[in-house]
């Protein structure tokens, strides 16, 4: 357990401030999509209000995909996973911590950015609230999915592009229930989004850990 904070703080520093752009790029990307969407469909407020929530969801999914290539592969190439294994720190534990840090690195900022995005799209406050709740329920699942797929595609040629392609179809249930809750207006959709997230969170450490181990052969 003592390893938890050490791993968490390293992962957070790496994901928030590492790389070329850190955690800022996905958020700017997300806001840019929300800003451009009214230009693409025209200024009709009823159309914007009806479809805006779904656009926020799609933009959130794409923003979560952007940092995938930095999640697992650098640590394998630098030998971190091998050194952790020698110290008895299991791959499952590392992946579980990584899911948490990936979520922390994009979801809170994304949910904050969803507020101006909702205003830009002219969403009603009830829809805005449903979007925020849905994102809260759905982004942990997106994080788990992203880390799992990143672990599975390590070492493949064009792994970054491939992992993006793999995440999108697997995220369909989250999108259907998350964005669906906006049109039906009930909390059932949000609850189902949360259920999908929980299932993905439960699977991610074991699938990701097995993928990292298999990659050593």
């Amino acid at each position, binding site marked *: 357990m003592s*390893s938890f904070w050490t791993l968490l703080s390293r992962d957070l520093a790496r994901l928030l401030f590492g790389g070329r752009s850190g955690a800022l790029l996905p958020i700017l990307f997300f806001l840019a999509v929300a800003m451009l969407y009214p230009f693409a469909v025209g200024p009709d407020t009823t159309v914007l209000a009806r479809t805006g929530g779904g656009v926020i969801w799609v933009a959130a999914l794409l923003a979560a995909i952007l940092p995938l290539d930095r999640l697992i592969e650098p640590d394998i190439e630098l030998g971190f996973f*091998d*050194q952790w294994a*020698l*110290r*008895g720190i299991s791959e499952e534990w590392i992946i579980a911590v990584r899911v948490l840090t990936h979520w922390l690195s994009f979801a809170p900022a994304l949910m904050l950015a969803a507020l101006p995005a909702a205003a830009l799209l002219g969403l009603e406050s009830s829809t805005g609230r449903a979007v925020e709740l849905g994102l809260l329920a759905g982004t942990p699942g997106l994080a788990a999915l992203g880390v799992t797929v990143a672990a599975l595609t390590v070492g493949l040629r064009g792994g970054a592009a491939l992992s993006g392609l793999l995440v999108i179809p697997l995220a369909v249930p989250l999108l259907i229930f998350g964005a669906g809750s906006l049109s039906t207006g009930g909390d059932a959709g949000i609850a189902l989004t949360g259920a999908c997230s929980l299932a993905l969170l439960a699977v991610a450490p074991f699938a990701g850990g097995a993928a990292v181990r298999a990659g*050593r*052969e």
Partner: protein
Amino acid sequence: MQESRIAATDLACRRGERVLFAGLSFALAPGEALHVAGANGIGKSSLLRILAGLLRPYAGSVELAGSIGLIDERTALDPALPLGRALAFWQHLDGPADSEVARLGLSDLLDVPVRYLSTGQRKRAAFARLLGQGAPVWLLDEPLNGLDTSAVQLVEALAAEHCKAGGVCVIASHQPFAMGGMERLDLKDYAS
């Protein structure tokens, strides 16, 4: 130091369709060292990874007492971080063992990001990580690559001290490694 021992029984290693070596056995008691020699591609690194438990042997088994410290071509230090903080990460995980930074000639480099370090400096940094780990079983894969003559002597002295203190050392290198009382294992004799 913890009890240290490593023994391999009838090991075989297969990479792809090729069996690299087979029927390899040895045992090291505390204080003993083994030099694994052989040409490039003969399976030295694979043998060390099998001993470390990172690769499954094709046949045979490894018996081990004590934790393992491994040095290979990857330093496991964050390239973007200053060396001091990169080493501090492992220090947090490994505990307070002394990593002898000054003796390795790294004192002046602690503020320098790891990506600006030379090959030899990175190798010495990896040794600082290894010493800080305090593991009784050392597996060193080409530990002399990129080191200058004084650093080579330092690494040889570190390995000798480690064995004297009751540790075990397995060194895979195509270069000569000067150390008294070291056994030699030529992988050529086990190649199939």
